[in-house]
């Protein structure tokens, strides 16, 4: 019915034939009241929902400050074998916040394969977090391998995967020398060519499309 449709297009309620309409009215009192009450209700609901949502989702975006931790002096780490040290990843929660790091001095003969890892790490600090699902790996001196007890992941001297389900090499930590002390800093992840990336969770491959499919998160420090 084209006639009726034209009448609805008019913004004046008088033209739309609404009972009680007066000259020049564009919105009825009922609609105004309803709209105002609904808007007030939405504001009230948002007042408690949005802070709660922010509270729940906030930690995703919070970035933890960089921390450097002294782990020993420059004489105690060999360049052909790993020495385990314990560092604190998350302070103030006791044992749950600590992790083991395997330390070795930078060795130009074996570490030059790695693409631009050397300029930031005078000492190599390999994380014990397995790149499969995060179990703690153990350095076995006799076979020169890191072995994961959970699902049989095996890594070589440089932390590259040589067996089992892990999807990328072991993470590393930045290191620096401060006087006579060696300090361990933030974590970074590497792909199979040992190129540096910002830290990723275990199970996230970084080769090829992996670095885009598993993006760096707001909370993890960017390189």
């Amino acid at each position: 019915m084209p006639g009726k449709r034209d009448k609805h297009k008019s913004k004046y309620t008088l033209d739309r034939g609404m009972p009680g309409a007066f000259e020049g009215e564009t919105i009825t009192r009922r609609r105004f009241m309803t709209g105002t009450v609904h808007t007030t209700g939405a504001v009230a609901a948002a007042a408690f929902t949005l802070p709660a949502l922010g509270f729940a989702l906030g930690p995703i975006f919070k970035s933890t400050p960089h921390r450097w931790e002294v782990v020993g002096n420059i004489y105690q780490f060999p360049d052909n074998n790993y020495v385990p040290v314990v560092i604190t990843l998350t302070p103030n929660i006791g044992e749950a916040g600590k992790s083991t790091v395997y330390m070795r001095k930078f060795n130009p003969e074996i570490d030059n394969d790695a693409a631009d890892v050397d300029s930031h790490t005078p000492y190599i600090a390999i994380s014990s977090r397995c790149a499969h699902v995060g179990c703690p790996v153990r350095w076995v001196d006799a076979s020169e391998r890191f072995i994961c007890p959970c699902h049989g992941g095996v890594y070589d001297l440089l932390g590259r995967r040589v067996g089992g389900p892990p999807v990328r090499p072991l993470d590393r930590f930045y290191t620096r020398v401060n006087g006579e002390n060696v300090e361990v800093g933030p974590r970074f992840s590497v792909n199979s060519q040992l190129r540096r990336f910002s830290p990723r969770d275990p199970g996230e491959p970084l080769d090829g499309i992996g670095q885009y499919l598993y993006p760096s998160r707001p909370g993890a420090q960017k390189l």
Partner: protein
Amino acid sequence: MPKLPAPPLPAPLRTPPPRPGEGTGNGGPVEGAKQAGVAVVDWVDERTSLSGAARWLMFRKVPKGTNWFYTLGSATMFAFLSQAVTGVFLAMYYRPDPAGGAYESIRYVTNDVFLGQFVRGMHKWGSSVMVVLVFLHMARTFFFGAYKYPRELNWVIGVVLLILTMVMSFTGYLLPFDQRAYWATIVGVNINGTGPLIGPYLSDFLRGGSEFGATTLSRFYAIHMLLVPGLLAALIGAHLYLVAKLGTTAPPWAKAEKRKELRETEV
């Protein structure tokens, strides 16, 4: 206004009519106690009409062939109630403190509290019982075809209940905060992270950050104790309402009886 007739009661529960010649009589103290109880129930019922609802829920017609498989749903709910009650008692002692308080509070409950080891054991084994029963109930519903029209929504609610049960198991596993709990959670959260694109954000959301931190245990505790039980209770209520409203199905091997006229006549 004339009173509507009450919904039907099964025969054993109906009060028998008085024998002829016996009249009312006052009855002894047992009779008096019974009448007092009935009076209390009547007082509540007149103000809430709950007895109609109770009769609608409990005295439903069920199809011929209903067997013991149909008890699996109620068994699951019983397991849930057991978990809720034992969980409440455990929550009175538990401390969600990652720096050692959590482990210590569970050790205290297990070793030093009267019946603490029993209640904790019921809660721990009860969760396995509930997961097993949930799957058996789901299998029964599937193989009996009880998900078909008009019960599709009930099936969907059931699947959501299954997911919530799994969330309860996952979050509850971390709470004792021993080595097994800690590493199982690390592994579980990292598995979440392997999903493409949103995986890393999901694992960050679960952990409360990019590393396992002080808030991770508290998050898991709040989800386990407040968020999911509330959702579970609401959805179980909806699930039960739909079961009562739509009725249960006959087992798939039950055949409908043909009307006499349609049966072939014997020669």
